[in-house]
């Protein structure tokens, strides 16, 4: 318990089939442990249900706000606005990683974006995005995008991102082999070697 404040990187592993967080009923013991995590800078969340987390997010994770700089979400469930509200909990967030999948897409909705916004001036990592709607909403919430590094394994939303960060982007990582994967790649010519 005394070591918990030393933890700077927290990763919450679970699957949709067997989720353990968020608890549907706030659990006093879980809360005590979470409260002791006072210096978390990197948070990773696997297959989180944002709609279930929303009512308890502030209670469990709100104290990460002063220190959290990096957030990674893999296969989250929920809507665009639920994700934006979750991001809005962390006013010092610079790095954001979002890995969706064809089976787990965030649903667009028309809910107004929250007023509070993180700076997001670090690295953006994106995989399997469905259009640029979420990015536009994120830009609206943040008053523009200012990422300095991007890691894009999807082309979706690329144009919007590259234009939005034209004055700030310093490094861009791309995965062209992903764009020609599967049966399509079989139709391309080989380089003579």
């Amino acid at each position, binding site marked *: 318990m005394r070591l918990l404040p030393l933890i700077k990187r927290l*990763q919450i*592993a679970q699957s949709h089939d067997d989720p353990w967080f968020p608890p549907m009923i706030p659990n006093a013991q879980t809360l005590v442990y979470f409260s002791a995590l006072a210096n978390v800078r*990197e948070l*990773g*969340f*696997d297959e989180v249900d944002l709609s279930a987390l929303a009512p308890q997010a502030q209670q469990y994770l709100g104290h990460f706000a002063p220190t959290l700089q*990096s*957030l*990674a979400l*893999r296969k989250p469930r929920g809507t665009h606005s639920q994700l934006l509200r979750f991001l809005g909990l962390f006013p010092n967030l610079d*790095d*954001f*990683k979002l*890995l969706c999948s064809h089976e787990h897409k965030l649903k667009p909705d028309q809910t107004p974006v929250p007023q509070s916004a993180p700076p997001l001036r670090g*690295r953006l*990592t994106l995989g399997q995005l469905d259009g640029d709607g979420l990015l536009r909403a994120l830009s609206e919430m943040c008053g523009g995008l200012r990422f300095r590094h991007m*890691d894009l394994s999807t*082309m*979706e*939303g*690329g*144009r919007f991102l*590259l*234009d939005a*960060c*034209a*004055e*700030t*982007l*310093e*490094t*861009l*990582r*791309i*995965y*062209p*082999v*992903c*764009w*020609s994967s599967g049966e*399509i*790649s079989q*139709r*391309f*010519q*080989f*380089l003579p*070697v």
Partner: protein
Amino acid sequence: MLVQWGNFSTVSVLARLTHQPTGIRENLLRNLDLSKSRSLRSLEIPAKSVSVYSFVLLTLKVILLTIRSPVFSEVVIVLEGGSIDETCLSQRTLFRFVQGMHDVKPFRLVFCLEIWEGDRDETAELLRRYIDAEAAKGGLDFLPSPPTIVFNTRATRGSKWEGLRA
């Protein structure tokens, strides 16, 4: 928009891309235009993308041709995860690929090792052997300076969480 660079132009590169499926070609041009970026210094490509597919090289040529940033200077080939053997990267394929890109836009070549500590020294040594052997043949004369090897210290021990790190 026509971009002229050396003996190449987006027109000639696109002419070759016209043989590729329309959806992918249009998607590329629509989404990966870097012409507005004014601060881009570096383009990073995972070594696993250094592929024998001509599509990948053509794609990168198109992207390089769109770059207008006055501070752009380097292409970084990133070795991720395990050892270099896992990328099935041969010396010949690697430097042919690099030269193909360099033909359309000059850059400094950097190799970034984001691999487990256990494989790091061995991979760096193998990479140095690739570079030395190619340089001895004059195969790197097109580069303005010798390739450099850097280590990304954020990439450390592999785990199931590695993919989640932001």
